[in-house]
């Protein structure tokens, strides 16, 4: 099936994959920025890491998987990320700590919007694209809901972990989509490989 699909619309699929990879790369940059903003907002020392089990649970993305299966798993992980982000935004609004955090709030919205675009782009790449795929149900993760029992720090740590998951999975999406692209690089990256590499170095 994959071979058939590739033969039917190889050009358009490559273009879609490239666009999704570019989108994932850009989203990863936005997620990194969001993580930095949150770290500064909460004065979390940069050397501190968050532990615990991953909030996003999907089977490992093994290289033995077919591209379609990899896309499926990636799509599932990104969908969980979106659910977690939506819940985090909702919890923060409920707490309503307010203050002058306009940049942080805008960045959250930016990440949310672009994550939606990436999900849509990734969905089009799936074997049964165009919305006809039968998606697997969302995994029931015990930590998907706010686990803190009203503890402000637990909520902060939970959000911090969500943003870390976002940063991780958007990076994974970027790499996976680039790997799925025949040239192994997005058009944008091919155009500005040197500059992009430099930007990553600065991070």
């Amino acid at each position, binding site marked *: 099936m994959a071979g058939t699909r590739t033969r039917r619309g190889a050009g358009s699929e490559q273009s879609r994959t490239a666009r999704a990879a570019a989108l994932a790369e850009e989203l990863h940059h936005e997620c990194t920025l969001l993580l930095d903003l949150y770290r500064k*907002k*909460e*004065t*979390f*020392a940069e*050397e*501190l*890491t*968050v*532990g615990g089990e991953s909030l996003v649970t999907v089977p490992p993305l093994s290289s033995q998987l077919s591209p379609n299966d990899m896309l499926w798993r990636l799509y599932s992980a990104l969908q969980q990320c979106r659910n977690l982000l939506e819940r985090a935004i909702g919890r923060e609004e*409920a*707490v*309503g*700590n*307010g*203050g002058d*955090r306009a940049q942080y709030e805008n960045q959250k919205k930016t990440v949310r919007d672009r994550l939606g675009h990436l999900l849509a782009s990734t969905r089009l790449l799936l074997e049964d694209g165009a919305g006809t795929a039968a998606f697997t149900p969302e995994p029931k993760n015990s930590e998907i809901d706010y686990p803190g029992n*009203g*503890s*402000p*720090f637990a909520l*902060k*740590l939970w959000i911090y972990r969500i943003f870390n998951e976002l940063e991780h999975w958007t990076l994974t999406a970027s790499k996976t989509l680039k790997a799925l692209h025949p040239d192994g690089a997005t058009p944008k990256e091919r155009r500005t490989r040197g500059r992009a590499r430099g930007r990553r170095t600065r991070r």
Partner: protein
Amino acid sequence: MPSLFLGILLLGLRVTESQASGLAPPQQVRLDADTEAQKLLVTWEDGRASTFDVEILRTELMEIVFNETVVATEDQSTGKHQWNWTSPVPLECTSLSVKVRSRDGQDVSEWSSQQILPGLDLPDNTDSQMYPEGKTVPVGSNMTFCCIVKEGQQFGSLLYKDTLVKETMLSRRTYATTMTNQGPSNPSGTNVVCSDEKKMIITGAVVFVGYPPMPSDLVCETHDLISVDCQWSKGRETYLFGMARQTYYTLNGRNCSKARDSNMRCGLEQWDGNWTLVARNLLGEFRLTDAAELGHRVRPVAPVNLTTPEVYSWNASVGWLWKYNGYERLSLICQVQRTSHSNSSTQTYTGYGLNTVVLKDLQPDEKYNVKVRCGSQKNFWKWGEWSLPLSFQTKMDRPVAPDIWLWMDSDNLGRVLWKPLTKSESHGQISGYEVTLWSPEENSQQTLTLPQSMYSLPINVTDRWSKVTVTARNPAGVSLPANVVIPRHLPDAEDTTISKVTFNGSGFPLSWVAHANASCGYVVDWYNTSCTHDCNVEWTRVAADNTNTMVQSSNFFAGVRYTFSLYACSSESTVLLERWHGYMQELVPSRTVPRLSPNQEGSDVQLTWDQIPLEHQRGFILGYTVYLTNASHLTLLANITDPQLTNHTVKNLVLGSYKFTVKAYNAAGEDGGATVSISLDPYTYWLIMEILVALGTMTCLLIIITIACYRKRKWVKKAFYPDIPEPKLPGEWGITQGTLDVKPSPHSMVHIVEDSVWDSSKEALVTVPEEDEEGTGDEEADTDEPASLRYYNQVVEEGSSSRGRPHASDSSASSTGSMDSGHTDVTYTGIQTSACSLAPMAHFQPQPDASQCAGGGGYRPQMQSASCPEDPQTGPEEHLQPPVGSFGGYQPQCSWKQDSPEADGGGLDQACLGSPTSVTSSQFLLPYDTSEEGKEHQSSASTWFHNLLTGKP
């Protein structure tokens, strides 16, 4: 055995002591913890004492936390004692062991059984935790945080915000830190993070540090005369945010849910008269109160639906509506603010239920914006809000009369000028101007219609017109006429005094003496002084009772000289009274002095230049400075403070090149400077003059000498050239041979070297007239000792002084030969020597010079020597041969060079002048024959002159 015995003994003593005190230990000790407040309530029974010893330990490490004697009264209803203790450390951090004993003075009971308050660090509670979590405390609080690490996990560090803090171990899994004097938190609280040794976050807590609310300035008022609207200030920031920690307000017990952020207001439906505002957050509450009657707190709402029922040129009416009917009975005071394009003014109106006003003093054809606000006239409280603005435009009206002025460009030509009408004067768009020229004498007029863009009309004042009228026209009509009289006699500007006026920052202040004939006031006009054609003229009018004004204009520019003229205005004419010159700001001259030139006058240099043209002066020229320029260095030579003086002389300069710089200066400074160079020449003319004077003086002196000599020529001749007596020859001279006596110097020996050539044609001695002797320039005359020489005519007498020396007569011949020095060489030897030396000398001059016989004319006695024809040694042929290159006469005494070419007797530079001279005197030996007329004149003049130049007498 001994130790066992000792132990038993001590135990027995203790039992005995307890039994002896009679105090029973507390029973049923119970611990109740308030973890939120970190309080521990200890209760026990059966304690008859009122004081107890309480000991609290951390169970795991057995560290005493508290050990004091406390007072605990018995609750009569329950019969229990209770005591509260506030722990500095959250009670969850670790287990605490508590025991109590009764005390009565020094008597104490046994300790109660130890009660343990279990902490959350027990093994069965494996999760990591931190306490206290989510607590809200005031700024400045001290707090202890404890971190319980997960079972089996290794503690790493504690961070307060992002600062590493020092921890204390409370139990195997619990570590604590104490923060003192905490500052305000950020909006999401202050984080305390506990991490393991791998820097991974184990757990954490958030503390919210802030202030209790403190609002102020509660004020309640009514807008609708029914309800109440209260406002207050938020006051100090609480630093507490979020739904749980923000400040909540209530007004008279009703929640003010809309009072957030900066909108601190709350309303009630009915006027209560007394209001209490309560502000509350987790740290406390604050109360504010206010009380007032309704009539004292009326603040009307903003009028709505503004309209302009009637609009005219100069006034208009404005109406509006009120939102509440209650205003109809309310005495209102309203402000109407109207704003035109440049002006804004506010007028106040009053009335019950006021809803219409008439705006007066409006400008025609003007667009206005109006807005209204009102207040209660009685017990005025505050102005209400401004209404929304309303715009309208007044109608047009005829324009005002233009301001006209007559400006004379020349004696006969002038311009009628009028100022453009401003917006407030035109009352509508000006469509044009009408200029009417009047001649009352001839009862005639001429009207010209000019477009709106023209503001002047040239006229000839010599025409019959005597008055000019100007009117402006717009769509609403024609303005009133403005008149100006054409003067019959022009004011004489030359006689008017001109003074300077200084700009004072805002204008030129002018003042003058009142003039009697200024019935319609004064006019001050001004223009650019350097302007010559079609100048921009401005003017202003001053009332008749004013004698000063401040001339202001937006057209004044720095560095431009303006001329201000004051005219007295009457219905008949205008009279020029006074004039001023002034600069708004003086600038340095924009150019250098023109036509700077140097002129050498001997050792002085005069510099001259012209004045800077007026338009370039840019200030009142105060003078000039003259510099000597050396490279880039200027040395001040003179400061000329008279601006009319345009020359300067630099004196006493030595020869060389100079550069001079002349700068004009005014109050703003000097110009760039004009430089001129000059190279001082040597004083050629002066030297020439000196030479000429010297030559003239010498010439005069020579003339005087010449005249003197001429007048005294006889004396001169006598003194310098005395007559030599003519030889007196007795008898016939032709055949008679006589002796010419010559008295030679006894001490001189003259050797006459005669040329051997003998002119056979001169066989006889030629008589030389006495006059010729005078003309012989080659001869010297010794007036002091007249010559006494004797010449022999060829035959020398024997026995004479030359006897024995056959050639001794040759000396005479030589003397004769000296008459023609071209034929005779004369060698003087042995001058001033004795005569005995003559013999050998004669040996060298044996030959008589026969050529001397054929020498030049004149007396040549030697030629007549007998030796010429009789000389046996020389034939006639030899005498006929003239000597080539030899001299006919003998050499003068001074010549010792026999063959010297300089021996030519004709040279004036030879002192002897070619004439034989006595060795003992300077007298010429052979004066010329005076009979030779041709030579007389020449010889006497030249001889005299030569004598004069050579200084010989």
